[in-house]
């Protein structure tokens, strides 16, 4: 880790301490998996309590009657009782956990053949070690209690249902010499297991017992962002860099290496990874495990560093790295706050630097470089969607506005998605927002360009957009594309405040500037699909739901996977161009989930979700039974123009809105 890249993580201490209390001490994310989570909390609390005892025991072997400072008197007696209970609970937990791992074998722990052999043995072995510690301590103390009892000496308080109590009861009939032998043997076993465990810990997933605390403390605090190419190299100095991104292990930052050592192999990331679910060759869990194995191979315990090789030739595979949609489900789930997106992006930067970019992505990259959009369409056609509306201002020398509607590429050029652009413009107009667009001066936001590792191209797009935005003189920016939203909010600097359209809609509904009429067909059941870059990356879960619920008579259901557990539709931006190796499509699984929830209309708030889900509805043969709609399209359809204060829509707008989609 000393050889790793710089990463500034010793900052914002209050936030970090708060996070550590929440995620490490309070184990906040554990109960997301109820059984495993509760078992883990028992083990964790037990460990904390018993660690004091284990330390005491080591000294007891050297100093007769040793107690830790402060635990000598009454407090010590209380501690001993609590510890006895904790030890009993830990043993029971271990037994349940062993049965769970050994007999029921939850699917998420499976190791696909290509990732090596099963990890169950190690897990059960460690559980046995822990059980051994509990039992030996109980025998050590139980034998003493039995002796004290026999000899009518003063005994400390022993609860009968604890391990210690049971050990004492079982051992009671034995002779003092036997008790003495048991006492010694138990002590030695306890110390042997204890020290073996300490040495064994750092070699595998159980290192997290020690590292997780630090891993959580040094967590990434800013969601939705992507780390710079190098933390200690400014954008202006990037051209001087010899190499870009992560190509070999040492290119990772020290925190990312700590991540590898910390991974507890719990499989929650992969269990939630949409790429893994559709059979793409990506499983976040094995990114960590393969890299940890590579670290041990490169820096063995007993000899010097060896095996210098690049990560992409032998450890990881190209398809694995390109398969990620950066949806963030893995990071949302990881109880230890391990990061994946930044690593994937860094690895992609390395691949881009080597020219190892799939052919399917080279065309859109080149088009973005030349035309500012991945389709290679001409710049002057960027605002063509708005032509028929008549009232959409193209900001520039002649026109200005308070608010900029940032459209972005797919919404500007894709036939179907242009409807979202028109709906957004109509709703903004109806809600009395003074807005305009950048027209041909708008470039792709570059959101996926950055996340696909083409940093220099991203910077160029960002700089051009920033200039155009500042020149337009707007005070606010609104967009209907969560990817553009995230880019403008997190990747851009020094531009006006950005909102997603759902936030504007919510505000306008509350203020009464926007009124919605009753749903006509009572049989339609709506469900809301959280786009990754609106939900997980920006925490906007409630605004779109409140907008939906403001429609009188709406029937809305939640899918099993919603909010921070939403399931990615298949990915946006350049992911639409990438041709992955997969067994099924994410969109198809998502449509299944909507069907299971009883929905007939899936509401999204993202153009890419629309593309993927509409495709999936067709390929799943559900056309006619289910449909996808953007939140803005539904709002437009339900808009009560007559009730709008001080706004007489033109006849044309009115009839268009009525006809809907």
């Amino acid at each position, binding site marked *: 880790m000393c050889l790793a890249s710089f990463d500034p993580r010793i900052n914002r201490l209050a936030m970090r301490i708060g996070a550590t209390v929440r995620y490490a001490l309070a184990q906040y994310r554990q109960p997301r998996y109820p059984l495993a989570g509760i078992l883990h909390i028992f083990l964790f609390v037990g460990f904390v309590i018993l660690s004091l005892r284990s330390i005491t025991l080591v000294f007891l072997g050297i100093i007769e009657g040793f107690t830790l400072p402060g635990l000598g008197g009454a407090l010590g007696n209380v501690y001993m009782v609590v510890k006895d209970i904790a030890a009993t609970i830990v043993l029971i937990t271990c037994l349940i956990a062993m049965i769970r791992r050994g007999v029921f074998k939850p699917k998420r722990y499976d190791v696909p053949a290509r990732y090596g052999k099963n990890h169950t043995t190690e897990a059960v072995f460690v559980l046995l070690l822990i059980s051994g510690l509990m039992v030996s301590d109980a025998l050590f103390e139980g034998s003493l209690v039995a002796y004290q009892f026999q000899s009518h000496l003063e005994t400390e308080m022993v609860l009968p249902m604890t391990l210690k109590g049971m050990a004492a009861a079982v051992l009671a009939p034995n002779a003092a010499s036997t008790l003495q032998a048991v006492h010694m043997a138990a002590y030695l076993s306890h110390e042997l297991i204890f020290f073996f465990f300490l040495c064994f810990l750092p070699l595998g997933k159980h290192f997290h017992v020690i590292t997780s605390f630090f891993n959580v403390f040094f967590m990434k605090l800013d969601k939705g962002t992507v780390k710079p190419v190098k933390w200690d190299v400014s954008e202006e100095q990037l*051209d001087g860099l010899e190499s870009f991104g992560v190509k070999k292990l040492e290119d990772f930052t020290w925190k990312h290496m700590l991540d590898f050592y910390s991974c507890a192999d719990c499989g929650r990331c992969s269990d939630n990874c949409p790429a893994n679910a559709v059979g793409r060759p990506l499983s976040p869990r094995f990114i960590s495990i393969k890299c940890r194995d590579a670290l041990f191979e490169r820096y063995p315990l007993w000899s010097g560093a060896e095996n210098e090789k690049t990560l992409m030739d032998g450890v990881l595979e190209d398809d694995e790295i390109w398969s990620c949609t950066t949806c963030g489900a893995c990071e949302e789930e990881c109880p230890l706050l391990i990061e994946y997106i930044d690593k994937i992006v860094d690895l992609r930067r390395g691949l881009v630097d*080597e020219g190892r*970019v799939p052919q399917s992505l080279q065309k859109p990259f080149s088009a973005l470089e030349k035309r500012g959009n991945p389709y*290679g369409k001409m710049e002057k056609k960027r605002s063509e969607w708005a032509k028929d509306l008549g009232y959409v201002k193209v900001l520039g020398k002649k026109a200005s506005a308070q608010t900029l509607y940032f459209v972005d590429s797919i919404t500007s050029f894709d*036939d179907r998605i242009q409807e979202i652009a028109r709906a957004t413009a109509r709703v903004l107009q109806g809600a009395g927002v003074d807005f305009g667009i950048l027209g041909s001066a708008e470039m792709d936001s570059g959101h996926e360009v950055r996340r696909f590792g083409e940093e220099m191209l991203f910077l160029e797009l960002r700089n051009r957009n920033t200039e155009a935005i500042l020149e337009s003189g707007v005070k606010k920016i609104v967009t209907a594309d969560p990817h553009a939203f995230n880019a403008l909010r997190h990747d851009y600097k020094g531009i006006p405040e950005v909102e997603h359209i759902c936030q504007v809609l919510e505000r306008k509904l509350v203020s009464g500037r926007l009124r919605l009429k009753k749903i006509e067909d009572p049989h339609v059941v709506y469900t809301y699909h959280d786009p990754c870059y609106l939900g997980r990356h920006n925490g906007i879960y409630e605004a779109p739901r409140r907008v939906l619920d403001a429609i009188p008579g709406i029937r809305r259901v939640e899918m099993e996977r919603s909010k921070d557990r939403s399931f990615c539709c298949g990915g946006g931006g350049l992911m639409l161009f990438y041709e992955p190796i997969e067994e099924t499509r994410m969109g198809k699984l998502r449509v299944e989930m909507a069907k299971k929830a009883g929905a007939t209309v899936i509401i999204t708030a993202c153009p890419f979700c629309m593309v993927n889900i509409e495709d999936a509805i067709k390929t799943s043969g559900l056309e006619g039974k289910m449909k996808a709609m953007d939140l803005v399209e539904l709002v437009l359809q339900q808009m009560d123009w007559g009730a709008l204060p001080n706004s007489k829509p033109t006849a044309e707008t009115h009839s268009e809105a009525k006809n809907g989609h």
Partner: protein
Amino acid sequence: MEILVCIKRVPDTSENEITVNKEGTDIEREDLVYSVNEWDNYAVEEAIRIRDKVGGTVTVVSLGSEETEEVIRREMAMGADKGIHLMDPALEGSDGRGIAVALKAEVKKGGYDLVLTGAQADDGAGQVGGMLAAMLQRPFAALVNHIEVTGADTLRIGREIAGGNQEFSEIRLPCVLSIQTGINEPRYVGIRGIRKVASVEIPIHGISDIAVPAETVGKTGARVKRIDYFTPQLGKGAEILEGSDEEIIDKLIEILKSKGRIK
């Protein structure tokens, strides 16, 4: 192996809408974006791979105006060792033969073992490779989609024939090959790569540098004269379907069904 790859800067067909100008003398060039001809890009990648395997140098050469430099630089960012820019007022308006004459002189000057060209160019007639080989009196193979260095002066080359089958031939060096797309997967060249070679000098060769008489090239040397550009009239039986993609697809299926082509 000393390899020369002949490349051309062309309007990118996937990023432009090509229309004929009013006068019918050319295509509308305003608003066009240019890139390296796709076939040539494959040829450069192949040359780099051969060099990486057997050693030597890869040189890219392109004939054209000042802007041509950008595609030479791009291919150098890809991994070509050297670039040569053929530029001279006398070369303007050259036909395919004129270009081949200039390239021939460049090949002679540099003494290359292997000359690669793209099988054709987006805006060309697919003639330069063959003419160049003939002028050099070297063996030539067209539409090559596989190259293997088998000996000090032999190559095993492949070509796709009808039915998706493959044909293999042996060819002796020095030779000229025209390269088909799909021979490899060209590597990506980003802005960073181009900036890295931004300051590398690219020599400009005029006709005096390669000892080509002015009257053999350019407008004067051209034996093919372009006389007209036009958009063909809609013929009988031809129909352009209109509407959204979906509507077009539906209409197309309907037509195919009604004509009995699909059931």
